[in-house]
């Protein structure tokens, strides 16, 4: 309306004038008035006439004394007719669909947010300020539970431990102290990093870096600065669009030349050219693809895979390499007691999440002693109010290994609190790095026994040094060389499993030296701390998740290489890798071979070893070629002690070799790799915000096994998208051929723009989407990942089938219906050729048909539009068969079955929609679609049947002759 107002103000005047007013009789009353009255009314004078001023005023009021020019079609209306007329409407609909697709995408995305406080000391006073306002040089205090607001150099610390797992991947909290312990800033104890968490204790420090300059900030900047390539599905769709464009332009130009040869004018030929190109665009297809991906994303979200980027849905399906972080992804990110050594025997504890594993013999007296030591010499305790929660899931206040012990004892021996109540703590020396032990003194359970019980735990070798006896089968025996040897072997074995080993010992202090009420001084130790009795070893590990080995196995059989990339130590990494099957049983690393053959590592041919464990420091020195060599020649690879940058290098290396790489991780240290990967998978529970932001997909349950679901869904949707596209593209041929024949042989137009839209955006939509629900034809998890260079979403074979074969049959079906209707109404096919000019001549109102009847323009146009409707209905009919054959690419429909309920619904829906469009009263005016006689619905049936038979025959030959000509030419 705005345009209209600006350009033609006169028009507005006319429009606002009340039409009813004009319809009334002439409202002149002046003829009844006297001359004086008339003069008064018009403020004029019979002699003098109007004054000049009045005349000017009235001219302004009434406008010039001229008739308003008759309304002509305004220029903008003409322009709009050009803009929206003919095939242009197809383009506009496409444009509107883009908005729709964007809206869907925008609605499915959401971003997390956070905000923080920091306690700084300024001008001698503690102030709570927003973490954003912290500056370098600020003195900062952190306590357990706080998030570290910036990189700080610790100046003083009291039992401070920080959880660096998001930065380095280490599961265990690291203690912080003012001393420099390592050259590497990431390893030294006196620096705490931005966005890590202080788990316990307090510390004070000076801010050395803030914002993007912090270690974390550098990683985040690196992450956001990374160029991410297009997703595989985006590349496929682009390739597909190129093919379609190529075909469209080829057809358009061919017919442009043909039109010129046939004697059309340049302008007409150009209009044909544009029309053909536009008609080739499958308007509904991109929307269909979006909807299919959205449906899969929804389905995956139900299975705990939240997809942030819609296109990532398919990426997992194409993935050929998964680089997985260890902590929290493969493992439970929770220290758990794995083994115990007592009575000179290694016992295995149950590490599964649901306690389904085997239990060990708990009857031994030594075990009772060991559990008592572990329970008493332990500061961890359950947080209150968790009685209903299963023991393993309870929250614990305390350090990771102590809580592991706590849970283990609580599980096997009952309430630890009761045990502690019975054995009141008298004195305690907490763990410190110089002693490397922790001890406490307790009263005994027996009220008659006035002796004190001293319990101690710590680094095994330190504990052993303090022991003179060892407990075996509940009896104390002197520690001889043999037992020391046994101890060493057990320690080595457990350590070799990547486990963290603690030694336990105790002693009952003699009553004579330490009578009841003895004042134990823990600062200046005034009691016996050696000649103790060694009880046993307990080793802990962050155990693999239960579902992971199975999931890794499934990935293997699906042809996906699983690489472990972790910041943790090589021994732990290797142990977990072996535990989850990343290094499969029987496969050795170079070091293993060297150890087995007893030769130096350098003499082993690296090709003999399928597995390898590579340390981050070695990785630093590798050239690009060496890196490629490793990635190419080892099937089972573990990278340990890797920095965030190295993770990135590993991902890039894999991508250089043509792999589509998925990266899983939860820490900030993983985020550059997550971003660089073709698909980054972050952990929903344990994952840091940075990693979640960098990722394309989030595993809500932190379960690696969900990735397998993702792979399966991704592969399925890729197959189903092929089917969906094959289905949708097919109807392009019956949509375009009518126009081509209209141009070449001058017949009345068999299919109009509106009806084309009704197919593309109406009847074809639901069936195309329903193919997304199609079940897999074979076990898609048993085949190799697709090769992105070779296995395209849309290839020339799909085009050949859809356009060259099925589409052609469909077009014939449509044309048959067209000819039937015209012939049955009097226009025989022989007469139609070349009739176009007369047919479309508005002033020719006595066009003669084959029976001598004469038709007005409107009458024959109604027949033409009935033909459009019939052509449309015929396409629906042949699309039934197309939908059924598109269900499978290789199998017969009879093997696949018709279990897809949505598809069956789609069949009925498109038929109902077609019937509605044809029979609903008012459609003749609204869409120019006319009711069909029932018999006309059956015109395309033979062709529909032919499509089905032809394609079943094709698939039969395809199955009978694997790799034969039919497969090479028609398997899409």
């Amino acid at each position, binding site marked *: 309306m705005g345009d209209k107002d600006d350009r033609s103000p006169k028009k507005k005047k006319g429009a606002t004038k009340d039409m009813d007013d004009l319809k009334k009789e002439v409202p002149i009353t002046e003829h009844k008035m006297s001359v004086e009255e008339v003069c008064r009314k018009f403020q004029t004078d019979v002699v003098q006439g109007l004054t000049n001023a009045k005349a000017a005023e009235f001219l302004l009021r009434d406008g010039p004394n001229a008739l308003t020019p008759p309304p002509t079609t305004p220029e903008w209306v003409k322009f709009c007719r050009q803009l929206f007329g003919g095939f242009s409407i197809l383009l506009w609909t496409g444009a509107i669909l883009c908005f729709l697709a964007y809206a869907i995408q925008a609605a499915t995305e959401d971003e997390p947010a956070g905000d923080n406080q920091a306690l700084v000391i300024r001008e001698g006073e503690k102030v709570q300020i927003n973490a954003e306002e912290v500056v370098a040089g600020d003195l900062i205090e952190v306590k357990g539970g706080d998030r570290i607001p910036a990189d700080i150099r610790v100046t003083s610390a009291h039992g401070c431990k920080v959880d660096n797992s998001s930065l380095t991947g280490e599961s265990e909290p690291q203690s912080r102290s003012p001393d420099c312990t390592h050259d590497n800033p990431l390893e030294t104890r006196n620096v705490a990093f931005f966005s890590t968490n202080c788990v316990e204790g307090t510390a004070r420090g000076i801010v050395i870096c803030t914002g993007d300059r912090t270690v974390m900030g550098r990683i985040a900047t690196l992450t956001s600065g990374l160029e991410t390539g297009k997703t595989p599905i985006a590349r496929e769709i682009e390739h597909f669009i190129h093919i379609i*464009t190529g075909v469209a*332009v080829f057809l358009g130009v061919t017919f442009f030349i043909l039109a010129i040869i046939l004697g059309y004018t340049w302008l007409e030929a150009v209009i044909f050219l544009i029309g053909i190109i536009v008609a080739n665009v499958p308007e509904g297809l991109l929307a269909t693809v979006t909807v299919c991906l959205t449906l899969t994303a929804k389905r995956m979200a139900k299975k705990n895979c939240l997809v942030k980027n819609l296109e990532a849905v398919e990426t997992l399906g194409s993935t050929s390499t998964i680089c997985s972080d260890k902590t929290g992804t493969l493992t439970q990110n929770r220290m758990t007691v794995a083994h115990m050594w007592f009575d000179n025997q290694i016992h295995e504890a149950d590490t599964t999440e649901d306690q389904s594993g085997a239990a060990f013999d708990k009857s031994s007296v030594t075990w009772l002693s060991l559990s008592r030591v572990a329970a008493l010499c332990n500061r961890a305790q359950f947080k209150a109010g968790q009685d209903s929660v299963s023991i393993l899931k309870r929250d614990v206040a305390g350090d990771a290994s102590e809580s592991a012990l706590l849970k283990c004892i609580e599980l096997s021996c009952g309430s630890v609190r009761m045990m502690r109540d019975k054995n009141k703590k008298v004195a305690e020396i907490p763990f410190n790095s110089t002693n490397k032990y922790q001890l406490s003194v307790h009263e005994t359970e027996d009220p008659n026994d006035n002796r004190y019980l001293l319990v101690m735990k710590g680094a095994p070798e330190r504990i052993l040094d303090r022991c003179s006896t060892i407990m075996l089968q509940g009896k104390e025996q002197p520690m001889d060389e043999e037992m020391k040897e046994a101890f060493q072997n057990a320690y080595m074995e457990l350590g070799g499993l990547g486990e963290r080993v603690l030694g336990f010992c105790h002693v009952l202090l003699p009553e004579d030296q330490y009578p009841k009420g003895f004042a134990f001084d823990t600062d200046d130790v005034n009691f016996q701390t050696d000649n103790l009795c060694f009880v046993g070893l307990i080793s802990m590990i962050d155990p693999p998740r239960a579902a992971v080995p199975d999931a890794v196995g499934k990935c293997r059989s699906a042809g996906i290489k699983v690489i472990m990339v972790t910041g943790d130590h090589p021994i732990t990494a290797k142990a977990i890798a072996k535990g989850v099957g990343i290094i499969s049983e029987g496969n050795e690393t170079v070091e293993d071979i060297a150890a087995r053959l007893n030769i130096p590592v350098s003499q082993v041919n690296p090709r003999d070893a399928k597995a390898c464990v590579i340390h981050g420091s070695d990785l630093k020195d590798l050239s690009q070629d060496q890196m490629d060599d490793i990635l190419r020649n080892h099937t089972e690879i573990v990278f340990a002690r890797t920095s965030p940058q190295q993770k990135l290098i590993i991902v890039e290396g894999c991508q250089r070799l043509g792999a589509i790489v998925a990266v899983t991780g939860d820490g900030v240290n993983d985020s550059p790799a997550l971003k660089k990967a073709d698909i980054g998978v972050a952990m929903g529970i344990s994952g840091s915000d940075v990693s979640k932001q960098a990722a394309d997909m989030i595993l809500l349950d932190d379960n690696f096994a969900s990735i397998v679901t993702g792979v399966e869904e991704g592969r399925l949707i890729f197959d189903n998208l092929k089917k969906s596209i094959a289905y949708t593209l097919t109807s392009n041929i019956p949509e375009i051929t009518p126009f081509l024949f209209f141009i070449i042989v001058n017949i009345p137009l068999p299919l109009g723009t509106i009806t084309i839209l009704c197919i593309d955006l109406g009847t074809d939509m639901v069936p195309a989407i329903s193919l997304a629900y199609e079940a897999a034809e074979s076990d898609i998890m048993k085949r190799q990942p697709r090769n992105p260079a070779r296995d395209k979403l849309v290839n020339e074979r799909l085009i050949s089938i859809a356009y060259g074969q099925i589409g052609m*049959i469909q077009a014939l079906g449509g044309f048959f219906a067209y000819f039937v209707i015209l012939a049955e*109404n009097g226009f025989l096919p022989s007469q139609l050729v070349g009739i176009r000019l007369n047919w479309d001549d508005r*002033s020719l109102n006595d066009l003669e048909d084959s029976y001598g*009847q004469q038709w*007005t323009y409107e009458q024959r146009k*109604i027949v033409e539009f009935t033909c459009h409707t019939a052509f449309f209905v015929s396409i629906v009919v042949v699309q039934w068969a197309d939908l059924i054959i598109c269900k499978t690419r290789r199998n017969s429909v009879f093997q696949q079955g018709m279990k897809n309920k949505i598809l069956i619904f789609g069949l009925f829906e498109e038929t109902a929609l077609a019937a509605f469009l044809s029979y609903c009263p008012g459609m003749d005016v609204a869409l120019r679609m006319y009711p069909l006689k029932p018999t006309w619905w059956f015109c395309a049936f033979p062709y529909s049947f032919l499509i089905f038979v032809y394609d079943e025959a094709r698939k039969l030959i395809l199955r009978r002759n694997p790799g034969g000509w039919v497969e090479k*030419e028609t398997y899409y």
Partner: protein
Amino acid sequence: MASTEDKAANKENVSSWKDSIYNPRTGELLGRTASSWALILLFYLVFYCFLAGMFALTMWVMLLTLDDYVPRYRDRVPEPGLVIRPNSLDITFNKSDSKNYKNYVNHLESFLQRYNDSMQENNEECIPGEYYMQDGGEMTKKVCPFRRTSLSLCSGLSDTDFGYQEGKPCVLLKMNRIIGLKPIGDPYINCTVKKDHPVQMHYFPSEGRIDKMYFPYYGKKAHENYMQPLVAVKLLLTKEDYNKELAVECRVEGTNLRNNDERDKFLGRVTFRVKVVE
């Protein structure tokens, strides 16, 4: 638009462009060897031949089911349209320039050739005012004559210029042929000019009547020499009507035939413009 898309399509193939057209090592042309091309082309040839055969078969079967005399459905042409001769809705001419209206005159003359008396010697006279029903009996139906002479002043016999020279042009009107159409009542043509004062008009045959004996029509094959009844209107324009565009509307009146359809402006009526330049 075409050119940009063309470029986009080409860009992707640039890397392997030369090889993908002709690869001298494998002898591949556009990615296929000669035998591969031959095989796929042969397949498509056979496939399309089969399709053409199938299409021809279905068309043949369909044509077999059709009647030669009457189309299967006639519900799309229930009512006749009204058409004028000369075949133009905008009759503009200079009455003093014979070249100017020659086209119209020639057109009318050639159109009326069929109505020459000499052409109608075989036709038997029919009973005026009654439908000439010929159901049953022979397939070839008899034809009622419509003589050119009945158009009198507009027959072009006495006045070979059909009144165009004197500025009083004749316009012929005919109702579209529709098989089996039997108008109820007495059809006649009535024309009006949208103008302040009426223009005199002369109708031939008198009162613009269309005799019922010309109905029903039995179709091209049965009624080969069917004479379509005509009505001529001579617009008796006067001097003051010259140089003005006159809108003339003619309707079929006196019957059940529709002449006021909103969408189809030619159903039982026709509107045309006449402008005579002096």
